[in-house]
């Protein structure tokens, strides 16, 4: 035998999908939101996004360099975190504060827990919450630097006392105050369609999350318009599409995803409707992130050929 053959365990063919290609899909899906934010809030939105991405990538690279770990930035997950965090701050966010958020997201939440795949909560989400609590002033300034739209609205629609006066079309197109990525529902839906079409995510979590919030509002207010306003305003859509579907912090099975989505809906509704915060999505996400291991445990699939143990053997066989 002159040539040595390579021996490895089967299978000997692999799909084309890689971690990098999945993350690239998410980045593409985020593009409509980035573009929409630049149109609605002005070019500073692009600056904020760029700074956040660069900061995340640099923190990730630096941390792994210092700890002599393999360089992970080519998997693009830091870029995704950077964009998502940027989409979660208002356009006037001071750059220094934003970078602190990136530091928390990448170093504290992601790398200290072991890097990609090991974080207990969504890094961008925790970054946002830290910013929200630490710099409440900057985080709640829904200013429009672009004077042309300055008159439209200064408050997030959730804080408006009478939601019936809000135009659904404006809400859908995103012409209202809020953080960068959350306002334009159209852009978010485009992103969702792309993610589902490329099979990057399953529709189960966004559908059950948004659906349950809608149903709860419909029951509570008995008014279709306010239920739609509740769905279209605040961070609900953005959170449901881009943050609740984070692989690491969402359940594996369809059953688990539905449970997760509905629980998110319950918590979000409870915070928004009964709580003092107008915005419940980030805390609902963080709260439910911590439950994911338990949801996974309780919503396992039934394996093929599983027969319930002897005591209930008859029921199991009859299934």
């Amino acid at each position, binding site marked *: *035998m002159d*040539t040595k053959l390579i021996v*490895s*365990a089967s299978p000997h063919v692999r799909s084309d999908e890689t971690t990098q290609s999945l993350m690239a899909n998410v980045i593409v899906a985020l593009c409509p939101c980035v573009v929409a934010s630049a149109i609605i809030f002005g070019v500073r939105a692009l600056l904020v996004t760029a700074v956040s991405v660069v900061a995340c990538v640099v923190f990730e690279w630096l941390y792994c360099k210092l700890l002599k770990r393999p360089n992970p930035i080519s998997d693009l997950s830091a870029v995704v975190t950077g964009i998502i965090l940027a989409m979660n701050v208002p356009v006037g966010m001071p750059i220094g504060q934003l970078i602190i958020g990136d530091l928390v997201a990448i170093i504290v939440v992601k790398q200290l827990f072991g890097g990609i795949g090991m974080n207990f909560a969504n890094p961008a989400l925790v970054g946002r919450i830290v910013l929200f609590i630490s710099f409440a002033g900057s985080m709640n300034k829904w200013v429009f630097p672009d004077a042309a739209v300055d008159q439209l609205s200064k408050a997030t629609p959730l804080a408006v006392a009478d939601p019936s006066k809000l135009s659904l079309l404006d809400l859908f197109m995103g012409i209202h105050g809020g953080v960068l990525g959350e306002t334009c529902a159209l852009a978010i839906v485009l992103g969702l369609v792309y993610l589902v079409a490329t099979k990057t995510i399953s529709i189960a979590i966004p559908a059950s999350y948004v659906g349950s919030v809608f149903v709860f509002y419909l029951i509570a207010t008995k008014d279709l318009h306010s239920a739609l306003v509740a769905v279209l305003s605040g961070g609900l859509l953005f959170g449901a599409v881009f943050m609740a579907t984070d692989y*690491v912090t969402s359940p594996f*099975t369809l059953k688990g995803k539905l449970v997760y989505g509905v629980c998110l809906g319950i918590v979000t509704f409870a915070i928004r409707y009964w709580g003092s915060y107008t915005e419940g999505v980030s805390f609902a996400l963080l709260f439910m992130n911590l439950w994911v291991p338990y949801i*996974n445990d309780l919503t396992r699939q039934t*394996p093929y050929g599983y027969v319930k143990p002897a005591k209930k053997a008859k029921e199991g066989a009859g299934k």
Partner: protein
Amino acid sequence: MLNKLKRAALGAHTPHDKATAASKPIPMPLPAQVRILMSQHIGAPAKALVKKGDEVFVGTKIGEAGGFVSANIHSSVSGTVAAVEPFRLSNGRMCDSVVIKTDGKQTVDPAVKAPEVTDKASFLAAVRECGLVGLGGAGFPTDVKLQPKQSVDTLLINASECEVWLTSDTQEMLECSDDIIRGIKAVLQYTGIPKCIIGIENNKPECIDLLCKKTKDDSAIEVKPLPSVYGTGAELILIEKCLGREVPHGGLPADAGAIVMNVTSVSTLGKYLATGMPVVQRTITVDGDACAKPQNVVVPVGTAYQDILDYVGVKGELGKVVAGGAMMGPAVENLSYPTTKTTSGLILLSKAAAQPAQVNPCIRCGRCVEYCPMGLEPVEVNQAYAARDVQELGKLHADYCFNCGSCSFVCPAKRPVTQMMSLAKAFYLGEIKKGGNK
């Protein structure tokens, strides 16, 4: 929808790449010698009946079944026995083998004649005599399979051929449909099974059309087109897709009222009943990016891989040779291994295609969970196995895995998930055995 809640089992969309689907099987030139293994099936190895210097013909019985679950072995060539010696298999075990120098004449043994079959007993005896085993890869002796203790209402013919590249079953259906029908009818007649379903993936429309045409007068035989996703051809999954029943864990298909036979097995049975020629050759698909002329070839059982490679030609630098399909077949390190009754293909991969992918950290995307045809959760098994947590492995049913390869195929981080699953399964079963409790 309810089924999806129970178990996603999406089925991996492996590439079909059936470039050889239209390649009619042609016999390859006779090799100078063949090495016929005495263990080409599940169960006890056969006992060699010949010794060095004996003259043998095509179809001469050279190995006697070594037990109930075992099978006879016949010579695939005419010539002289050069040696009866132990041979190390790719799994590390030793196995007796009979080496036969061919004389090139391919004289058929005068004892080969169509068997007289009149009733169930003589039918089963004939099936046993011809050494037929499950030719799809498992190699379970067919006569044992055909006498189940449970009551069986359906004969399932597995013609899905979901493996990447392989087309030998496709060609068997196109070329030998009459043998297939004859085989099916014989099994139905003598075992008393009332109906037969032929499951074919819908990426083989010409096979579906042909078999539909051939069986339209027979109400007992139904041709069932199946979705072409990987995993359909696994015995358990086929039963679920065709009959809507599950085989209880650890049970046999007969526990779900079915007997599953590979389409090539039933075709070989049909041929044997007509001619009396036992299992001495089979069609093998040779393909892969390092194969100069991808094609289906008919090879005598016991032909060395090297002889087949010499015949079809290697293009560029050979990196890996896979015996069987690319999803489940083992990579071989030694080209002197002989083919067996169950070898359905040889996949030749170039150095570039055979390079192992870089393994990245698990991102817990859950694809291995969604695509597992058995409804297992490899990502959780991985954690439990890393912690050597026997109890958790039991809860996760790590022992249900049958190594189909779907999880590794879909893993975006390119982790060796299937390999981990088999290690976890072996560890779990070993610990259970040690502990003696379930």
